[in-house]
């Protein structure tokens, strides 16, 4: 089945300068009772966004109308903790297309890629440069190009290349799906199973 395609984006950003953001912060466990993939965006970062009575916390970045954009930029070790794919669903459902950090947890990275959400890993230095530029000018735009594998701060022209598994890159560019790939090669599995001793 075709999945979401990602090629290129240029957008303002939402800076979230916190390290070790775990998937329990991205989407708390009590919201995992839903049985579909939709609607998780409304509870994205719920306990940082809303107080115990459900009122928005003004100091949290997602509640600040001055910061909007399709690119979330966060501190290192983003997405650590639970394997819940709901975290990637929540970020994508909130309408982010890209997450930038200097370091991603493995499972989160895989989950994001399986949902058309591009994790872009940059150096600590480059991450600091993005945070500094957006602190100076909240209209700072960032460009991310998947084909060319680069990320650029538009106002300064500073850019860095990023890595991505070539197979996953092709999947994102073309909307390919892991399951279709394996299902189309089912004979491999049957051959393997026949040869398996234990």
């Amino acid at each position, binding site marked *: 089945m075709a999945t979401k395609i990602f090629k290129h984006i240029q957008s303002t950003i939402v800076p979230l300068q916190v*390290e070790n953001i775990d998937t329990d912060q991205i989407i708390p466990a009590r919201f995992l009772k839903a049985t579909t993939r939709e609607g998780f965006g409304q509870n994205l970062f719920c306990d940082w966004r809303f107080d115990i009575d459900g009122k928005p916390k003004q100091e949290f970045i997602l509640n600040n109308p001055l910061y909007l954009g399709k690119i979330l930029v966060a501190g290192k070790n983003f997405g650590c903790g*639970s394997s819940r794919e709901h975290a990637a669903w929540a970020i994508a459902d909130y309408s982010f297309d890209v997450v930038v950090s200097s370091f991603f947890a493995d*499972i989160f990275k895989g989950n994001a890629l399986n949902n058309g959400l591009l994790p872009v890993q940059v150096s600590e230095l480059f991450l600091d440069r993005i945070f500094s530029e957006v602190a100076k000018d909240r209209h700072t735009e960032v460009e991310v190009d998947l084909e060319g594998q680069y990320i650029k701060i538009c106002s300064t022209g500073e850019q860095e290349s990023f890595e991505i598994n070539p197979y996953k890159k092709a999947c994102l560019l073309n909307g390919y799906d892991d399951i279709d790939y394996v299902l189309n090669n089912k004979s491999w599995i049957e051959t393997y199973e026949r040869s398996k001793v234990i």
Partner: protein
Amino acid sequence: MGQTLFDKIWDAHIVNRSAGFPDVLYIDTHFIHEVTSPQAFDGLRDRGIPVFRTNQTVATADHNVPTLHQDQPIREELSRKQVDMLTQNCAEFGVELYGLGHPYQGIVHVIGPELGITVPGKTIVCGDSHTSTHGAFGTIAFGIGTSQVEQVLATQCLLQSKPKQMKIEVNGKLPFGVGAKDIILYIISKISAAGGTGYFVEYAGDTIRSLSMEGRMTICNMSIEMGARGGMIAPDQTTFDYVKDKEFVPKGEAWDTALTWWKTLYSEEDAVFDEVLSFDAADIEPMITYGTNPGMGIGITQIIPAKEALDEHEQFSYQKALDYMALQDNTEILGKQIDYVFIGSCTNSRIEDLRLVADFVKGREKAPHVTAWIVPGSKQVQLQAIAEGLDKVFESAGFELREPGCSACLGMNEDKIPAGKYCVSTSNRNFEGRQGPNARTFLASPLTAAAAAVTGKVTDVREMLPQLSEPEFVEF
């Protein structure tokens, strides 16, 4: 160059390797539960395909289930709906379900080993990051997202790039009062919550070898808390003795064949790891966390590290964590008053954990202001505890023995720690809000948790353990 334990199992499960593609890895056993599977079954329906190998998938209900009155319908509507959906999906697709009321029900990472579904040499996945627990038996076991749950249901395979490998050695005799949970909290505190990212870890060394299977599971369970995809320990006589005669373990000739293979599962002397770390068991004391990720841990007699000692860009996140915990840097954690104690979770809810706690609390009583919950990892653990009379010990000490499930580890059911309260917990995560909105978690071993329940504050359990003779103590 010799192969590692990981190489041997990985290579034995490659279905296809093509240039430019991740390996197609065969999955022997797939565990599923109610939270991360519904959308995967929907995916199968959308594609119009069945579960490819129904006899290699096992389901249980654990994350959402209440830990009281399990004989009655689940009261919380969304939880009930999710558990009911698992039942319907398993019936429709022909998957074996150990649901509520079944004698095999329990936390997925507790039931796999106790039923003998988890045996050496397997590849095991589950839509849960603590699947690394099964690595204690010398398996490649790791957590996956729901899209991958769908992939395994559809094909019994996963597309996976081979990760880097790390060996973590722990050698030497464990000091008095120190156990497996302290070892893993110590390692994570040294290498940080991200120190293992990108790696699969093999734990080795004579300290690891000396641990029981329960202790090894506790170690492997928390591999993900240092960011590693999984952790594993080479199987040995301790492993073989544990699995022998378990319900689903091969019997007769099949056992002999399996055992012959299992005995080849170790890293060769000349195997090369991408990273090797070594620790000395003598340096470890009972551990406790003070912050909001599992890397923020200290020896129980140490002080909370100074903020100024950190890099400037780390100080904001550090202070945010201390503010959440309402703690100050440069202060002692010993003596801090606590409100709840939770003994349970896939890290520490096995019969050995319950025996250890019962042994400690026998003849003692919890502090009046403390609520102490003991949540067994499975129905079998619960019944075993009752058969051994541990329930009576807990009852007279004021601890509540509940019914099996994930419970207050992640607060998906009613078992939440109230806002602002402190809980000493034997679980695996101290993230903000993990045990309930604004709840504050101190991760520790079952013994340290039990000691805190008795005194009502963070306590050095060594001061409450039976005194060893002086010379012997010095020798440790």
